[in-house]
């Protein structure tokens, strides 16, 4: 079954979001959020629908072969409720460390547990050290016949509710990158070894189990995941994968945010017109939609990249983890402007789902490595990945019908060895569109497109030159300039992804990237992120808005590819 069919099947099982008797309806999701109620029933339903099978590699009895597949499924859940999405998918975050670093018997045992519905947490962060992985205090002391785990983990997802927890602990007194290890704790067989810490109240995902665990557990040697000292490296690799999946979470929130506000705009009448007929609203809706398309393009491309160029994941996952949540937050904020007063009401239009999605989505730029953490880690590779060796080829794997092999777990690397296929393809991407424009006549958005392409070309050269001039002192001191250069890299790599998507897939993207007005607004949004202002006439925004409506009316959903509509939303009221 292909990716979109799988997603459609799951979405159908979740029922009509506007039917309040459905567990996955907006009404019930918001009610659970208001009550800060852990969504046990919803999680149970997802497990009965076999979602957990997609957290386990096919080689271990599950169905995980490719990340674009898992991303599509998580997006379907996220469109209903991010609390449920993160509370269920946390098992993937936890069990990944075993798929990456465990021995065969550990993998088989945990696979069985996850397939049977048990959930797995990752107990990583601590209150004093935050997310500084090399400064953790939880200790694992080697004893006769095992290890003594001692310490306290804080702000972990599912630490109270999940049966299993992967504990990140120091195994060598001086610490350092080889001084930490991962241990799989099974609370069912270690009743006295831990004490749950209270649920922490959060701005969004209010019903999620964000809590802590106090450890004083003795574990046998088979609890050690991999070898002593592998903890830091395994964790960094696991984060490359979870950060990529975060794109699906933000996209889900934005899908629903946009659908909700669009529906409102078409129904609500002010000054004798529907909100959706007002030029300013059309502009704002068009801009938010285009940001969704950009995020969608990048997420799709990076999810596919994991199979094709896994050794570049350290770069691409950081680009995605910075860009997608950032764009999603901006788009949601702009949609709130169109929504007006209703954005501020918790129980009015569509059961108040928009404000929940807005608050929940704020988590994505923060957890699993914040935007700042990702820019910082990217900055260390900036010199290597901006050497001026532009490729003339588009990455073949961006073509959506190109077959991809199954993901290879042993191919991840902490550095991409100077490779970054997206950024490398930027020159070619710019040239392709320029050539097409030169050959196409009567295109009213040519000027705007050429303006943006010229700017991207210059911005690329400027970045390469600015990075070359960086001194080791600036890198060492965490100079704000390095964050800015890393940010620019992210925007340019994203532009490359979108241009490649256009080049290789536009025949299937008629109402989105294949439409010149949409592409003009896409490039305007991207160059805007780099401080450039491309002028677009009113008719461009209106044309894009009409594409948005056409997209929604044809497929019921507004993304790049035909993700299923959420049931009754296809009906035009």
């Amino acid at each position: 079954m292909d990716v979109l069919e799988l997603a459609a099947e799951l979405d159908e099982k979740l029922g009509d979001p506007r039917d309040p008797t459905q567990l996955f309806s907006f009404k019930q999701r918001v009610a659970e959020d208001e009550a800060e109620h852990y969504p046990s029933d919803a999680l149970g339903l997802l497990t009965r629908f076999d979602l957990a099978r997609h957290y386990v590699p096919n080689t271990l009895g599950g169905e995980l072969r490719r990340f674009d597949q898992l991303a599509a499924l998580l997006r379907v859940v996220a469109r209903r409720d991010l609390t449920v999405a993160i509370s269920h998918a946390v098992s993937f975050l936890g069990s990944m460390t075993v798929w990456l670093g465990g021995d065969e018997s550990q993998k088989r045992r945990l696979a069985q547990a996850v397939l049977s519905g048990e959930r797995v947490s990752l107990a990583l962060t601590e209150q004093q050290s935050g997310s500084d992985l090399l400064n953790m205090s939880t200790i694992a002391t080697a004893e006769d016949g095992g290890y003594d785990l001692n310490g306290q983990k804080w702000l972990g997802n599912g630490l109270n509710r999940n049966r299993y927890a992967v504990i990140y602990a120091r195994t060598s007194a001086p610490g350092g990158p080889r001084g930490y290890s991962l241990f799989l704790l099974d609370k069912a067989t270690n009743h006295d070894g831990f004490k749950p810490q209270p649920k922490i109240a959060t701005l969004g995902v209010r019903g999620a189990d964000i809590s802590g665990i106090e450890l004083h557990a003795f574990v046998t040697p088979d609890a050690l995941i991999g070898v002593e000292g592998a903890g830091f490296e395994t964790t960094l690799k696991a984060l490359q994968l979870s950060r990529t999946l975060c794109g699906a979470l933000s996209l889900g929130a934005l899908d629903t945010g946009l659908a909700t506000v669009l529906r409102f705009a078409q129904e609500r009448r002010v000054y004798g017109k529907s909100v959706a007929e007002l030029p300013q609203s059309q502009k704002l809706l068009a801009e938010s939609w285009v940001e969704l398309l950009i995020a969608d393009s990048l997420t799709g491309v990076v999810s596919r990249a994991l199979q094709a160029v896994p050794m570049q994941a350290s770069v691409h996952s950081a680009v995605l983890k910075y860009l997608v949540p950032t764009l999603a937050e901006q788009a949601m904020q702009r949609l709130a402007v169109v929504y007006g007063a209703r954005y501020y009401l918790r129980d009015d239009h569509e059961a108040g789902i928009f404000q929940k999605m807005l608050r929940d989505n704020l988590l994505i730029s923060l957890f699993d490595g914040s935007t700042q953490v990702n820019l910082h880690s990217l900055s260390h590779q900036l010199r290597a990945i901006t050497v001026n060796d532009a490729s003339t080829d588009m990455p073949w794997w961006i073509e959506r019908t190109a077959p991809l092999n199954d993901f290879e777990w042993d191919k991840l690397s902490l550095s991409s060895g100077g490779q970054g296929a997206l950024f490398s393809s930027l020159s070619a991407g710019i040239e392709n569109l320029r050539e097409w424009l030169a050959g196409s006549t009567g295109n009213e958005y040519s000027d705007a497109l050429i303006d943006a392409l010229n700017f991207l070309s210059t911005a690329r050269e400027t970045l390469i030159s600015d990075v070359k001039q960086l001194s080791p002192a600036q890198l060492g001191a965490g100079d704000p300039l390095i964050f800015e250069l890393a940010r620019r890299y992210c925007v340019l790599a994203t532009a490359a992804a979108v241009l490649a998507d256009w080049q290789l897939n536009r025949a299937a993207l008629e109402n989105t990237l294949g439409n010149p007005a949409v592409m003009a607004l896409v490039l305007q949004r991207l160059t805007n992120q780099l401080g450039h202002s491309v002028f677009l006439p009113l008719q461009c925004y209106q044309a894009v808005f009409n594409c948005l409506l056409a997209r929604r009316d044809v497929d019921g959903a507004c993304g790049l590819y035909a993700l299923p509509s959420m049931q009754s939303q296809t009906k035009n009221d």
Partner: protein
Amino acid sequence: MQIMELISEVKPDEMMLQRWLIDRVAESIKVKPDDIDTTLPFSYYGLDSVAAIGLSGDLEILLGTKLSPTLTWDYPTIELLAAYLAKE
């Protein structure tokens, strides 16, 4: 540590590598190369483990060869790293 004391003991390319690393570390914390102790770990000089991955990337460019990203974790001082690279 004075560079002249090393000449009798190390191979020229190992010395060159040490020199490069000393200059690099000195530059990154804005001190004089003479103040760098090649037996102290990179972390002592503020090069954390993730930053050190970047160092291996720069070494790849310098030496024109692929290196493990975690090289600086297993050879965490200038002395150890230069000796390892010179042997390979």
